[in-house]
């Protein structure tokens, strides 16, 4: 596989994971950007463990993910009951705080960051393994009582409380889960790019991930899967003069989508339509096959 294709597949998977972190917590109407900050923690701690302490990749991975999870609990406990905007601003502030911390701590390389991170064999399989695992987790969540509870919380928090849903606990758990996903994405990102600098985990990165989820569709998990490869990949194949306008294109797409089709390209209605048409097509096919068999017989 060529190097550019490898990076494309690798980074697409990581960005899908990050898109899912925003999607999962937004299921209860909270826009939590903390996974990006925790991604930085995962990336830095795993890289530091490997480069400075000489730990093997698996140990560094586990260490970084555990630290990410522990760190995710702290703001989660405080923001569990916070109104939507409080969470958005507090978590964006958290991203900036993390950037500043890593930029100013000398043992993480300061503004230059950490580099020379060793290459990991079969990293692509590991990444897609985690992607499939998280995908199954989110799919099972969506099609369970928890998913239905999340729908109610999203629609009306008062009704959800009346029905006995502990919104605070729900929010804390989802924030920790998405924090873990963020930490995993951070480790995989660091070992893909093999350099970690503070500027990677900043606001433009958050805006790109936000574009993937909101243009793709925030009401289902499939929008991110379909649109991340497209939105990430198209600027790579455009001529350089156009590719430089990637963020501009993202901004226009995001604005256009929210104004014209607020739920994104792939929403639940579209999925229902797809399912109905797929069932009809399958029925037709089955009927024709039976007819054919009857004629032959």
């Amino acid at each position, binding site marked *: 596989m060529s190097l550019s294709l490898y990076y494309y597949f690798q980074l697409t998977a990581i960005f899908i994971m990050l898109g899912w972190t925003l999607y999962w917590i937004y299921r209860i109407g909270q826009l939590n950007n903390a996974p990006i900050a925790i991604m930085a923690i995962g990336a830095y701690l795993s890289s530091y463990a490997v480069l400075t302490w000489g730990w093997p990749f698996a140990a560094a991975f586990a260490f970084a993910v555990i630290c990410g999870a522990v760190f995710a609990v702290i703001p989660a406990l405080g923001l569990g*009951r916070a109104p939507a905007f409080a969470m958005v*601003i507090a978590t964006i502030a958290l991203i900036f705080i993390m950037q500043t911390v890593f930029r100013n701590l000398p043992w993480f390389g300061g503004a230059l960051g950490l580099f020379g991170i060793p290459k990991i064999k079969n990293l692509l399989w590991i990444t897609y393994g985690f992607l499939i695992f998280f995908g199954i987790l989110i799919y099972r969540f969506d099609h369970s009582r928890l998913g239905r509870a999340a729908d109610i919380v999203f629609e009306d928090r008062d009704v959800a409380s009346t029905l006995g849903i502990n919104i605070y606990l729900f929010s804390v758990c989802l924030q920790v889960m998405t924090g873990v996903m963020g930490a995993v994405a951070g480790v995989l990102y660091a070992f893909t790019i093999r350099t970690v600098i503070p500027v990677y985990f900043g606001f433009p990165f958050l805006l790109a991930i936000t574009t993937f989820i909101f243009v793709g569709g925030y009401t289902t998990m499939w929008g991110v899967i379909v649109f991340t490869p497209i939105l990430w990949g198209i600027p790579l194949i455009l001529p350089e003069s156009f590719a430089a306008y990637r963020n501009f294109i993202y901004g226009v797409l995001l*604005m256009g989508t*929210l*104004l014209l089709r607020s739920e994104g390209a792939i929403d639940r209605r579209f999925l229902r339509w797809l399912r109905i048409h797929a069932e009809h097509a399958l029925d037709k096919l089955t009927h024709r096959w039976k007819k054919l068999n009857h004629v032959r017989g």
Partner: protein
Amino acid sequence: MEIFLAQLINAIALGSVYALLVTGFNLLVVVGGIFPFAYSHIVVLSMYMCWFAMKMTGDNAAVGILAGVLSGTAFSFITEPVFRPLAKRGAVLGSFIVAMALSLIITEIMAQKLNMGIVISFPQTFQGKEALIQFGTATVTAGQIATIVGSIGAGLGFFYLLYRTKQGRAFRAMGQSPFSARLLGIPIVKTRIYAYLIAGLLGGISAVFLAMAIGTASSSLGDNLALKVMAVSMLAGVGNLGGGLVAALILGLSEGMVLAYLPGDWSQAIAFGMIMVVVMIRPKGLFGTMA
């Protein structure tokens, strides 16, 4: 002691500009019914317009100020139709994401097209670096005094409009309840447009004072300012106009002191850390949201 005084004055100057920014921001929240994340980016774009006007007229400060103020007003006015459908359906979170998209577009325009993405620097004469008052080695410059006096003047003018005029009553009525305001015969769309114009005017004035206080501008300044403005707004309570002034001064002071006494670039982290703590303990802000 002299360093403390110098930093204090610097902090007050910066804080007064933040106060003006937050006032414009809160006006759009309260009357516009949106969360205008891109407001600071519009202010930075106005700084660029001010700079361009000065470059074209041989560093003429009057032309620069006029260009900054007018462009702030115009850019804010242009964004009104974009947010109108969102304000109509009460999609405040949606308006926040649209504003984020708009901020991305404005940042890219500044980074790619304006001055080829190079940081702009305002003339020393415009910044008013000449010392007017001296306390030993610490000085109070003309720029700092102009910023403080100008911001106070603009702020007082706005609050006069808000509490002593018919238009101000319309703004407050819309802030309380757009439905009741409509029943009272207040033209909703027209009032919103006026709010955008006034917020843009405040933004343009802030752009001029920021140019004096900071002296430079870049495409990334918008993101930094936007977060500080939002953070101040959260600290005070979103939509709380009076509280926003106090919170802006608190942020300006804490930033100034941290810059003076702590090594490295910790001012942002400490400012945001402070805001995170307040948000977690008191999500409605120190002074509560606008009722």
